[in-house]
């Protein structure tokens, strides 16, 4: 079965109607229970910030005070800076549903008493109301909310990821029912018309990829969802899987129908235990609802999904390496063509798409290709999702229309740089991407503009850096990563990244030599040319972009042994400014993990440079009133203080 013919329309429609009605009934039953509802975000980021303790605190306090309220666990809202996030809907109080940030256990107990019992919402703790109203400013008044455009993450943080009914009640799986009434070619056409490009980094047109499998008529296709997410600083795929797994399953089933597949596989990192658990659960539920299995929505289309846990190798995100690892081998990429869509897993045509790509499918089927094209830019329609982290006020996941500028994203939506510091650079695209300086803040975010600037969309990791970061060290960090993760197949990648790393490590230790910059440049170009897969081809990007935009920092490291960002530890030193030191407070001495701070016979404070590990703890510990700890680079600038005297 390759070219599926439309099935008798009534069958999937009736089957869908049945599960939809059932889901609505359950939803209404939930909503008709009187009393307050407490929504708590319990994806990994929420749990990390203590959401489970918050939940227990609510449960305990509710029981103690005999309040009937329903606790509803949801996924991640994307506002990781505000975790644990709680939304309290307390209709009897007369207030609209309210968004509370950073709800610790203590706050949970306080809100139970004061808001749920006594009706006072405690304005000082409110971020905003979730709907427009006359009493409380709405969260939609904030740029962090109103400038986002949610397509993929629309339901994230709204529904319980463990409850398929909630997904169905918000129109989930209706796109599947519609798709099954159409010709498979029609669906591929729709995806092509939407202009959807793969969200895994390279931006390959998704419809075209699906169409390739149509040429492989003899063999059954396999659908693979790439949830390997190897970028060491990105976590949106995981969050989406944890917050709304069904939207991804739905995209995969539609893809399976369109490309003539019976088998789908989600390749998800084993290091993401919660995502694995929730997706496995979602698959079981979908089977129970006949959304997966021998007859999808009662039709004669059969499709099932299995989970394969990736074992943590960055290169396995590359599609051919991913396939190798599923076949039980070391994950080394191979030459393409043949592309996986022609010859993939066990030589069968294999469609591999990213989590977000699949998550775009249902909205496209429901709202149409034209609608999708109204979002984003002509060449890159739709939205982009970034995990914006680092030196930024409102860190977290942000979904924006393609084409928004970096400035809008970093300064308007994410609140800019904290602590009155200066913006220095933004690293986009993880180990394959690059660092862009302030001049590029007006670059629109889309596949092509970013590549042109030397960075790339890549995985969607975005790290904002302030004046305190060292571009040479950041390049070293990424090379350290790619060097370790290189599969070793291509000599240029295996040895080249090692040499690049050696040079960068020397620079950060103040052992740079004349000619190093040219050497870095040469090696980078050679590695790009001499590597087979995207890992080697892009590994030098962090070096090349930082060389292009921050050359003066490289020169300072080599010529002056100075780290302008004061981040390279060998090139910096701490000392205590005696004019400002209270001398008797001893906080610096107490906090030093290596006992490098000493008091002289004259009650002065000094730092033993031979012992100091430059952790900066004393600088944090020194009371702001004294502010006596100084950091300098080059290290030679530090004044000498003898133990005696």
């Amino acid at each position, binding site marked *: 079965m390759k070219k599926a013919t439309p099935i008798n329309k009534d069958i999937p429609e009736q089957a869908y109607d049945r599960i939809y009605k059932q889901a609505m009934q359950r939803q209404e039953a939930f909503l008709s229970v009187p009393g307050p509802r407490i929504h708590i975000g319990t994806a990994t*980021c929420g749990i990390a910030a203590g959401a489970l303790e918050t939940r227990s605190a609510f449960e305990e306090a509710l029981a103690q005070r005999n309040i009937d309220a329903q606790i509803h666990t949801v996924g991640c809202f994307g506002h990781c800076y505000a975790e644990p996030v709680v939304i309290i809907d307390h209709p009897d109080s007369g207030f609209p549903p309210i968004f509370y940030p950073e709800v610790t256990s203590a706050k949970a107990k306080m809100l139970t008493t004061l808001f749920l019992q006594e009706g006072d919402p405690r304005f000082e703790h409110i971020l905003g109301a979730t709907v427009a109203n006359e009493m409380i400013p709405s969260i939609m008044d904030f740029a962090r909310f109103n400038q986002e455009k949610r397509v993929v993450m629309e339901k994230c943080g709204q529904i319980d990821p463990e409850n398929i009914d909630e997904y169905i009640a918000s129109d989930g799986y209706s796109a599947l029912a519609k798709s099954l009434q159409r010709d498979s070619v029609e669906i591929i056409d729709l995806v092509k018309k939407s202009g959807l490009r793969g969200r895994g980094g390279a931006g390959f047109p998704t419809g075209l990829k699906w169409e390739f499998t149509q040429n492989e008529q003899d063999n059954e296709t396999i659908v693979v969802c790439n949830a390997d997410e190897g970028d060491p600083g990105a976590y949106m795929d995981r969050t989406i899987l944890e917050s709304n797994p069904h939207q991804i399953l739905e995209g995969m089933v539609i893809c399976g129908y369109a490309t003539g597949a019976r088998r789908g596989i989600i390749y998800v990192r084993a290091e993401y235990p919660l995502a694995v658990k929730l997706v496995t659960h979602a698959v079981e539920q979908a089977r129970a609802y006949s959304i997966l299995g021998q007859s999808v929505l009662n039709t004669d289309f059969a499709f099932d999904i299995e989970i394969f846990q990736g074992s943590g190798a960055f290169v396995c995100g590359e599609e051919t390496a991913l396939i190798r690892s599923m*076949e*039980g081998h070391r994950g080394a990429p191979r030459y393409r063509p043949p592309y996986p869509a022609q010859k993939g897993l066990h030589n069968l045509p294999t469609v591999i798409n990213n989590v977000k790509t699949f998550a775009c499918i249902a909205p496209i089927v429901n709202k149409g290709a034209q609608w999708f094209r109204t979002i984003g830019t002509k060449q890159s329609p739709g939205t982009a999702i970034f995990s914006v*982290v680092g030196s930024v006020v409102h860190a977290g996941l942000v979904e924006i229309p393609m084409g928004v500028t970096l400035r809008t994203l970093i300064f308007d939506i994410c609140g800019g740089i904290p602590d009155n510091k200066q913006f220095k650079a933004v690293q986009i695209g993880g180990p394959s991407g690059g660092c862009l300086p302030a001049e590029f803040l007006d670059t629109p975010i889309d596949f092509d503009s970013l590549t042109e600037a030397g960075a790339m969309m890549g995985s969607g990791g975005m*790290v904002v850096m302030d004046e305190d970061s060292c571009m040479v060290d950041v390049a070293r960090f990424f090379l350290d990563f790619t060097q370790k993760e290189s599969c070793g197949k291509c000599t240029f990648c295996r040895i080249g990244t090692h040499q690049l790393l050696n040079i960068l490590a020397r620079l950060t230790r103040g052992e740079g030599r004349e000619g190093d910059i040219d050497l870095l440049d040469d090696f980078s170009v050679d590695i790009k040319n001499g590597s087979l897969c995207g890992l080697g081809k892009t590994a030098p990007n962090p070096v090349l972009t930082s060389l292009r935009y921050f050359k003066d920092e490289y020169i300072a490291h080599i010529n002056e042994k100075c780290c302008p960002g004061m981040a390279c530890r060998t090139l910096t030193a701490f000392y205590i400014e005696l004019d400002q030191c209270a001398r008797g407070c001893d906080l610096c001495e107490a906090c030093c993990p290596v006992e490098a701070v000493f008091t002289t016979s004259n009650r002065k404070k000094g730092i033993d440079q031979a012992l100091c590990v430059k952790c900066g703890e004393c600088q944090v510990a020194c009371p702001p009133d004294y502010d006596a700890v100084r950091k300098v680079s080059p290290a030679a600038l530090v004044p000498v203080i003898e133990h005696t005297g």
Partner: protein
Amino acid sequence: MKETTDANEAALLQDARKRLETFAKERGNLIPILQMVQEKLAYLPSPALAMVAEYLGMTASDVYGVATFYNQFRFQPPGRNPIKVCLGTACYVKGGDIILENFERKLKIREGDTTPDREFSVERVACVGCCALAPVAVAGETLHGHMQPSKVEGLVLRIRMETQKKEKEADEKSNSD
């Protein structure tokens, strides 16, 4: 002590052997099988690798070659309190490496190693998915955000005390039984 660990390990290996039968003898199952074995034993000792090789009809070196390729697999037993320090991008730029160093210094082991008493092990991981809390360390199942070098000592101490307390309780329980 050593004997009981060994006996324990042999029993777990037997368990894993039984579970093997639920997997089809296909090379494609190699990684899921290794994951299952590691879940049972917490690491992959060489007898386990040999067992998997025999089951799948592969050479032991082939199995070892695949297993060592992936970061997930470990060949040394982890500590009872494994500590993972995040060195993902966000944590690194906020000083995650200093946190790691502090653990290494405090526990007198290098990253990737286990203390001789098998109480602690330290390893680096890449992004645990809560960059907004950077720098982050994970002790056992508990995540600690906004780590500081000075918090390391307290954390290690607390874990030691909790383990001691648990042991004492277990002792008392077995004595009263």
